[in-house]
């Protein structure tokens, strides 16, 4: 009951007999007695399918999910965007879901072509020539960008803007402990990175729009003369100049906004794109077009000599399993959006953001954290602490935003997606006014 082993007792006996064995335990003869687990696992016995679903349902109900009862104004790298039926239903076709990494291209053209299309779409958004087949998430994509930059620049020092998502910066520091890269954080001055005039970093990492929602000056970052690494919001690509067109060498980002639900933060999608010249240092998988024996167009993972299974300790990265299914989902969602839809989506986010920001700032005691121009997200100072606002607003039926740490001066980070209606925003603002005073 509740397990998925098909063997009947009779069949097990037959199979043992074929091997001249008389019990299943004999199969484990290689394991020294002393190491055998006596008494079995301290894990509750198996449950039937409906019992499992009842328990999972209980846990799900112990969360307050975003929806009509908790209207979402939180972002900070995880956004409540529309996910149409098409994207869900195509992404969860079992051929995509239950395939392994495409090691046998002859029977993996489905995933390979979807990834080829994904790579093409990402390069178009990033404005550089190469995109890989996905990394884990935005943070680890930043880490790989830093590693690539240090390797190609030959310089250990990397300037990281404090406009980069705080947890992403933490992840960068975590992994720098292993690589020994010298990570220097550059503070924001009224909402934008104030790059030092001198110092010779191998690379600079800036987020666009940055964590506070403000638009950064990429040219200024480029003027540092270092390799330019941009962590770009892919939705903003519907309105902004591409990072590549502004000199970015590597463009990374979080792909969650394209078809992936909030999901407590994962699985998400690490976007990674770079200029052609860096392709041999590209982390992760790359799909390329080629031909089969009958000269039919075919796709295959390529430049594999960068990868760990071949290069081993000299590999450009250790990544093996990535986030392919989420990349396929992203390709489907972007194709559903299309050229006009992507721009429309970005425009709708920007409109809601402006409308909400103006309304919130009209509440007395609510101050802008910065005057720098924003696009789809913004930060405000609030009379009471941001986390208090969030708790109180939850009782009013809103996820008010993401509370900012004190090093940002407290307050609240508010994101408004294309899903937010005027009615929802007006109700949000009314509740906000009520709870902050």
């Amino acid at each position, binding site marked *: 009951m*509740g397990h*998925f*082993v*098909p063997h009947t007792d009779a069949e097990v006996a037959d*199979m043992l007999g074929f*091997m001249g064995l008389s019990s299943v335990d004999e*199969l484990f003869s290689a*394991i020294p007695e002393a*190491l*055998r*687990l006596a008494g079995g*696992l*301290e*894990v509750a016995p*198996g449950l039937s399918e409906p019992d*499992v679903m009842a328990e*999972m349902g209980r*846990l*799900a109900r*112990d969360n*307050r*999910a975003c929806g009509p009862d908790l209207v979402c104004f939180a972002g900070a790298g995880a956004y409540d965007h529309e996910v149409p039926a098409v994207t869900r239903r195509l992404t969860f076709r*079992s*051929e995509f879901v*239950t*395939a392994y*990494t495409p090691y046998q*291209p002859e029977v993996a053209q*489905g995933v390979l072509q979807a990834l080829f299309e994904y790579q*093409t779409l990402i390069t*178009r958004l990033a404005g550089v*020539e190469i995109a890989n087949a*996905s990394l884990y998430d*935005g943070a680890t994509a930043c880490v790989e960008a830093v*590693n690539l930059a240090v390797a190609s620049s030959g310089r250990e020092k990397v300037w990281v803007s404090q406009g980069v998502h705080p*947890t992403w910066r933490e992840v960068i520091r*975590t992994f720098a402990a292993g690589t020994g890269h010298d990570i220097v954080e550059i503070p924001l001055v009224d909402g934008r990175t104030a790059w030092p005039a001198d110092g010779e970093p191998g690379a600079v990492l800036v987020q666009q729009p940055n964590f506070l929602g403000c*638009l950064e000056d990429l040219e200024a970052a480029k003027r540092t003369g270092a390799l330019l690494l941009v962590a770009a919001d892919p939705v903003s690509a519907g*309105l902004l100049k591409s990072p590549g067109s502004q000199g970015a060498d590597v463009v990374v980002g*979080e792909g969650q906004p394209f078809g992936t639900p*909030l999901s407590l*933060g*994962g*699985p998400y999608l690490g976007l990674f794109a770079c200029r052609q010249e860096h392709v041999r240092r590209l982390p992760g998988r790359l799909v*390329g077009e080629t031909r*089969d024996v*009958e000269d039919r167009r*075919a796709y295959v993972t390529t430049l594999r000599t960068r990868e760990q299974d071949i290069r081993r300790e000299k590999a450009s990265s250790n*990544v093996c399993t990535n986030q392919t299914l989420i990349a396929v989902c992203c390709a489907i969602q972007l*194709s559903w*959006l*299309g050229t*006009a*839809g992507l721009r429309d*989506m970005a*425009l709708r986010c920007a409109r*809601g953001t402006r409308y909400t920001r103006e309304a919130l700032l009209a509440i007395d005691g609510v101050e802008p954290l910065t005057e720098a*121009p924003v696009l789809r997200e913004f930060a405000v100072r609030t009379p009471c602490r941001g986390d208090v606002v969030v708790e109180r607003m*939850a009782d009013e039926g809103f996820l008010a935003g993401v509370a900012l740490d004190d090093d940002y001066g407290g307050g609240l980070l508010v994101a408004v997606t294309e899903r937010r*209606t005027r009615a929802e925003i007006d109700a949000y603002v009314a509740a906000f006014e009520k709870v902050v005073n």
Partner: protein
Amino acid sequence: MQMPGGKATSAPIMGRDEEPTIFELSSPGRNAASFRTTDLPEWTAEELVPAEHLQAEPTPVCEVSERDLVAHFTRLTHRQYSVDLGAYPLGSCTMKYNPKLCDDAASLPGLTDVHPAAPPSLTQGWMELLADLASILCRVTGMHAATLQPPAGASGELTGLLLMRAWHADQGRQRTKVIIPDSAHGTNPASVTLGGYETVTVPSDSRGCVDVAALRERLDTDVAGIMLTNPNTLGLFEEDIAEIAAAVHDVGGLLYYDGANLNAILGVTRPGDMGFDIVHMNLHKTFAVPHGGGGPGAGPVAVSERLTPYLPGPIPVLGDDGSYRWDTPPKSIGRVHSWHGNALALARAYSYILANGGDGLRKVAEAAVLNANWLRHRLRGVYDIPYDRPNMHEFVASTTSLKKADGLKAIDVAKRLLEEGFHAPTVYFPLIVEEALMIEPTETESPQTLAALGDALEAIARSPEGAQAAPRTTPVGRVDEARAARQLIPTWDARP
């Protein structure tokens, strides 16, 4: 140029043609997207975006109808093999059947629609799930505490090495080397490098296990630790593991357990009991998280008590008030993921564990080992079995003799097997076996399927002629990998 249009000859049910790309299916002005009516002021892009930031031209994506979008990706799925279509005996990858109930569990809105930055007061259900999963994984591996953040095995490895590093540093030690067997998976040495260590390889002995004498030679106070998987990548249990553990510990090193092969020992023995200090698990292997064509996975890391203070945070802990809060261990190495790891993959694994239970998990290991051993016996005298002794969940065969006799290479067997209705085994890995066929049937394949797989493998060996031309029945024939690297075409826009 005439656009291809939506003919279905690329679906194998009808033909063997190429499937056009989504870009070839585009037509200017066509679209599928629609959005909620918001009644917001319709400010223009110019009004909303400073001129210096505003793009001159919309970013080109593609322009297709929902109908063509659906047909395109549905046809692509017909060009893709998967576990749901049949057996997938890909060694080291544990491509078992993924129960559908886990799909349902992971798509409950109460789990999918929760914001990662929402305060604990709104996410108690998730925090209980994660805390309970971590504790179960510790009981399964015999460890003390765990982080669920690593999104895959390799990430877990690197996390483990950084834990090793932090621990040694805290002991005031400067260690420089990590030992791995020559049979190790490629992510191990790659992670060692990223962990800031130098890789030292230890050879395998004639039994396919770590050569303990050779290991002792390499052990000194520069050694931070050793990475092993047990059973190893040959599917063999490292019988000397206790001795190895003692030796490594003697020089102050730590033992890292690569849990990719954990499926073999569920409920039978535990890394913790073998003396390992750090364990990563591949939930996308052992705990039936579907592999998604390459991911997402989940690579939690469990550690012994002494390493617990260094774990990445935040970790959900149950307070005396009976509610969960996020806690970061005192000496934490820091986060290794933007949020809390691949949460929905963790929820899938949790539901899989609930369904199996302790009793069921042991049955998993028993059947996995039973299947692998049966198939090894079945293939005796058909293929070389370089290490022909009781194996665990997988075993490695070789075409060395067949290659000499008939020029049959491992890759040819792989391609021929596709024609026979099975995915190929892992080939040319581990590197210490030439013409390696690494076969892992998993526990979810029935004895009948196993018999059919054995027959297919025998048929291929018995009549190897024409194997170089295989596969001939697949949507595309053998693919030119060299050409792909020589004339790189990484995107549609890069085509000549």
